[in-house]
């Protein structure tokens, strides 16, 4: 029972580099999300998707891009990495938007931009 799988677990980037955080879920969930958690802070929504081909911005989308070509995959692209993007990134999924459906999180990806 894999659930939500994120890769890589850890990554160090240089300023200006680009990278993609991969996320896949095997629960056939329609909704997928990317959150970031800065030290001592709560999780902030970066982007979310309500189904294949549909994405929308969350609270902190600047500097990121996403795509959703399949139900299973929701990669997060960082263009021109900046130190402010040093954070822990969590991918998540849920079956629908109705109250009572909980969000299932991946284990997180630790990203440091130097």
């Amino acid at each position, binding site marked *: 029972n894999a659930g939500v799988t994120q890769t890589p677990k850890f990554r160090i980037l240089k300023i200006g580099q680009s990278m993609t955080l991969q996320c896949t879920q095997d629960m056939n969930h329609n*909704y997928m999300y990317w959150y970031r958690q800065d030290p001592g802070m709560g999780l902030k929504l970066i982007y*979310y998707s309500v189904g294949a081909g549909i994405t929308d911005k969350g609270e902190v989308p600047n500097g990121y891009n996403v795509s959703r070509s399949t139900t299973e995959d929701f990669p997060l692209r960082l263009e021109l990495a900046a130190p402010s993007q040093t954070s822990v990134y969590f991918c998540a999924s849920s079956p629908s938007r109705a109250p009572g459906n909980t969000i299932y999180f*991946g*284990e997180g990806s630790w990203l440091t931009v130097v």
Partner: protein
Amino acid sequence: DQQVKQNSPSLSVQEGRISILNCDYTNSMFDYFLWYKKYPAEGPTFLISISSIKDKNEDGRFTVFLNKSAKHLSLHIVPSQPGDSAVYFCAASGLSSGANSKLTFGKGITLSVRP
């Protein structure tokens, strides 16, 4: 502007005693509240939730109380166990924004349960 506030960053309790974790919110449009638990190097996991039509929801050792007039909720863990030591996040959403797409999280409380 923090809409979900967990003002105490940490809490330490003795094993077997009650743990009370507090959460306040400012947005009156929130009508669904959740608690997530997070161990180090893992993603958050859902613990318990409550709808604004209720004032209490219980699941085993965990009970969440909601006081809508005070915009306050609390998570009670009785009895506390060492395995409960983790970071607890309070989260809130509003039906009009699509519950899961607009979850707002607090900063989290680190609970330590002493053996």
